[in-house]
């Protein structure tokens, strides 16, 4: 009873709950996956690969449809820069996510589906109501879309066009991923280190604004690491073949290091190389998750005593889908060392479109270049608020190594790294930040409304979303 009385003014919380949910949708497209969900939730409701299936001139979306089929090709609507490449497919993919997956059609209630009418035997169903609904599926939902910091003005205008023209959304906003990742970590000012699927970016965010001159990016990301693993597999003795799971019909256990003993699955059609590459990537992802580790001791791995120490550490066994297995010892440190020390990187694998990184593309070099691009007064503050996000940063020991490198780079400055502990929060940092932003009461004055879009055209996004 007493709890229901209003609190005395002294006991009332001084801060105001700033949330005000307007059923906004948040869409966060990345190179590997595209995330979507309702603002105000802590995890995206729907995550589908940005890779999509192309078969018989149709595009199909979702993880579950990527299966071995005749004439089935796997494509990606994003490019290696995490910028949308194929806008037609992007529009379809986003609509699939936001409309089909987030707001699935409800079955027509039995009272209205006409089956129970019985009066006229035609079985005609009155369709106008449902038609009206499908016309404007997102008419009530403002949409917040994320973009890479280096997104081009043209691409931004295209995004607003899709949202406004195709879906009739009442409002729209475009926000940069580092800013949102900083928000997800609860910070308005931060140095965001985003180690994602296709590339790594380091961006300074000040007071919720990205600093353009500080943006640094390099291909050191999940894809590049996969390339390093492939090179390592090729270089190892005996050579390791990556056979994706779908190709294995049957396998028998073998000794470590022994050749695999498996019966390959037979398909009556050709498997597209893009599909095989996608499936191989799954295996490599598992390898990254379970074996690859970042050297976290003092100094670089290349230092002789460090290498010896790494060799003496217990190894990890990884069994390939085809049953061959092997113990990985110092190699599992070595394969990720290129992120920090370009001289330690394996040569890029032949035939695959993975770049060889240069000196300026290692993570410490990126951070240094980023900080050189901001005002000196901000640098200590940024170093005290380093936000790590992106799923490749989930590599074991990544944060320790980053901390060591930063301490070495800036010995006199306090360095503090903020990395979410939950893997979902690390993987979906930008989406979560968008979810927070779009559900804030004070944010609703920012939305670009339909009226504004109609008045100023798509280039309003350049003026408003700074």
């Amino acid at each position, binding site marked *: 009873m007493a709890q229901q009385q209003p609190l005395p003014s002294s006991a009332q919380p001084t801060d105001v709950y700033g949330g005000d949910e307007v059923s906004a949708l948040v869409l966060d497209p990345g190179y590997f996956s595209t995330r979507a969900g309702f603002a105000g939730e802590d995890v995206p409701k729907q995550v589908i690969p940005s890779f999509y299936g192309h078969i018989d001139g149709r595009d199909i979306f979702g993880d579950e449809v990527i299966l071995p089929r005749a004439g089935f090709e796997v494509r990606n609507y994003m490019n290696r820069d995490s910028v949308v490449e194929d806008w037609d497919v992007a529009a379809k993919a986003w609509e699939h996510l936001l409309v089909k997956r987030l707001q699935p059609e409800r079955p027509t209630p039995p009272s209205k589906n006409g089956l129970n009418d019985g009066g006229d035997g035609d079985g005609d169903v009155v369709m106008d109501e449902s038609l009206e609904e499908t016309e404007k599926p997102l008419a009530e939902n403002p949409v917040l879309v994320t973009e890479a910091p280096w997104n081009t003005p043209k691409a931004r205008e295209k995004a607003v066009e899709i949202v406004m023209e195709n879906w009739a959304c009442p409002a729209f906003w475009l926000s940069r991923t580092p800013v949102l990742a900083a928000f997800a970590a609860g910070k308005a000012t931060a140095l965001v280190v985003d180690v994602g699927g296709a590339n790594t970016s380091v961006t300074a965010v000040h007071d919720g604004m990205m600093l353009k001159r500080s943006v640094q990016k390099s291909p050191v990301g999940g894809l590049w690491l996969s390339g390093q693993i492939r090179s390592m597999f090729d270089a190892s003795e005996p050579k390791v073949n990556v056979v994706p799971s779908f190709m294995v019909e049957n396998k028998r256990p073998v000794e470590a290091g022994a050749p695999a003993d498996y019966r390959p699955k037979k398909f009556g059609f050709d498997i597209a190389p893009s599909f095989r590459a996608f499936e191989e990537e799954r295996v490599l992802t598992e390898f990254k998750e379970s074996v690859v580790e970042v050297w976290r001791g003092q100094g670089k791995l290349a230092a002789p005593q460090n290498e010896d120490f790494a060799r003496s550490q217990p190894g990890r066994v990884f069994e390939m889908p085809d049953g061959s297995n092997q113990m990985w010892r110092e190699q599992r440190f070595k394969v990720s060392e290129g992120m920090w020390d370009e001289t330690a990187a394996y040569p890029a694998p032949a035939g695959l479109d993975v770049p060889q990184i240069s000196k300026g593309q290692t993570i410490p070099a990126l951070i240094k270049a980023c900080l050189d691009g901001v*005002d000196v007064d*901000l640098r200590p503050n940024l170093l005290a608020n380093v936000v790590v996000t992106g799923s490749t940063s989930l590599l074991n020991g990544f944060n320790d190594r980053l901390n060591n490198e930063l301490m070495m780079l800036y*010995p*006199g400055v306090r360095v503090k790294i903020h990395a979410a502990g939950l893997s979902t929060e690390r993987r979906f940092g930008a989406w979560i930040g968008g979810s927070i932003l779009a559900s804030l009461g004070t944010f*609703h*004055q920012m939305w670009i409304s339909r*009226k*504004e879009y109609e008045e100023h055209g798509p280039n309003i996004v350049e003026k408003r979303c700074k």
Partner: protein
Amino acid sequence: MSLDVREVLNIPDSGPRPAKKQKTAAPRTNLKGLAREVQSLGGDNPIAIVPEVSVFKKRRFGSRKPAAKWELRRFTNSARGDSGALVLQHWRRMHEDVSHSEDQMQDVLSQADQSAEGGQEKIEAPEDSTFAKFNVQVVVPQYSEDQYNSNLQNDDWTKDETDYLLEMVKELDLRWPVIWDRYEYLPKGPPAGDLDGADNTAVIPVPKSRTMEDLKARYYEVAAKMMAVQKPAQYMTKPEFDLYEMMANFDADEERKRKEFAINTMGRSKDEAREEESLLLEIKRILARTERFTEERRELYQRLDYPHTDQDISIYKSSQGLQTLLQTLMNVDKSKKRKSLAEGVAGPTPTSAGFAAGQAPHQSSDGPGNRRESIAASATGHLRRDSLVSATPATPADATPTSAADKKKKGNAAQFERRKLSEQEETIYGVSHHDRLTSGPTFRYEKINKLYSHKSGQQQLRITNLLTELDVPSRLIMPTAAVTSQFELLWAAVTTLVDLRKVSDKVDAEIKLEEALPGSSGAHKRSASVMSATSDKSSKRQKK
């Protein structure tokens, strides 16, 4: 049920059962179903079942109120400044006053559609967002064309670029790092029409790179000037003026130097950083040691009875300081009941102060160049003398005799400014003046005792006898300042009396000796009269 259990287990019926039953009856009525059966299994000794287990469910059912009603309410945000063009919806508690019946509730969802169709009661304007009030914007100086031309001309900045800068500042809310980051001013092409820009048509506009200091300097310059234009500096309120001064005094070069320094600090190597840290530690240690060292040194000086001058004499170096010094010296002399020098010293000749203080009379012949030093010297010299006289580590003001309460050391400045008390006030506050004070506290009766100690035992006896004769105790019961002083007077009279008696006795003896020879008695008579006069006087005093 419990009876059945007892029967099964062959437990005889116990006596006090009814009473117990009475006790357990009350909770038992609350229980229902299986719980009651389990409870009654225990019989006399109830099983420890916590009946509160069911509270959760009970409360839910007990406080069953109709579920709170929510509605999808439309709202606008006035901070957008688009006069309500964007209408969003959020779920809000339904207003209490609207009592919906059940069938109305079913229509809640369809209400939104009705309003979209131009329905009946939902037409009224959607409410404003509660968050609109958080929209705060910075105030950026405004200027007209004329104002710009008369006040804000700058060789380095065109009006266009200044406009652009102010626009940026407004848009980015004075966040300088961001402003600098986004600053991309492209000079407009050759100015057309009103300005004759024919001479620079060939120049391709190149974006000028501006440092953050340039931007800040220009903005503060504009802001300060416009502030002064709108309100002259003398009419500004204090915070306004502070802001104005801060902006007007912005020094871009200083900032630049500071940033360079900061960059260097950031760029230190690990060794340098460590070295600096250790040096800082060293400094801290040295500073701590100096403090102790000076403390010891001061103690040593005190022990050497060196005048305690931790005050610096620089306060005497200004003409105002001299005046205060003079004042102090005058006070000292006045209080010592020397002849007043007030008239003589009132002039501005500082040497007379030295003279007045009884110090270094030869200084009066010094040239004006030496004056300052001589004053300083005389000041210290004076200090020394005073401290010697008062035997306390004294400042000049301390030398002016003060009451016991005032003997506490105070700040020098405060002592110089001390008000001179009139005689009346002195009595009120109990201020007394002494030629000489011993260090430390003394008791007043000790002073009386001291008087005795000078006298021989016989004289002491005589004095005591005389005092008892006068009904005055030889040891004062209540030695207040007034009583002691009166007692001293009395005592002086008594001693005189005793002395005179002694003399008269002697004279008597001589007279007797003379009378034994051929003699006269005049001397005797005179001494007696003297004696009576003194005793008279002393008794009068006593009465007072």
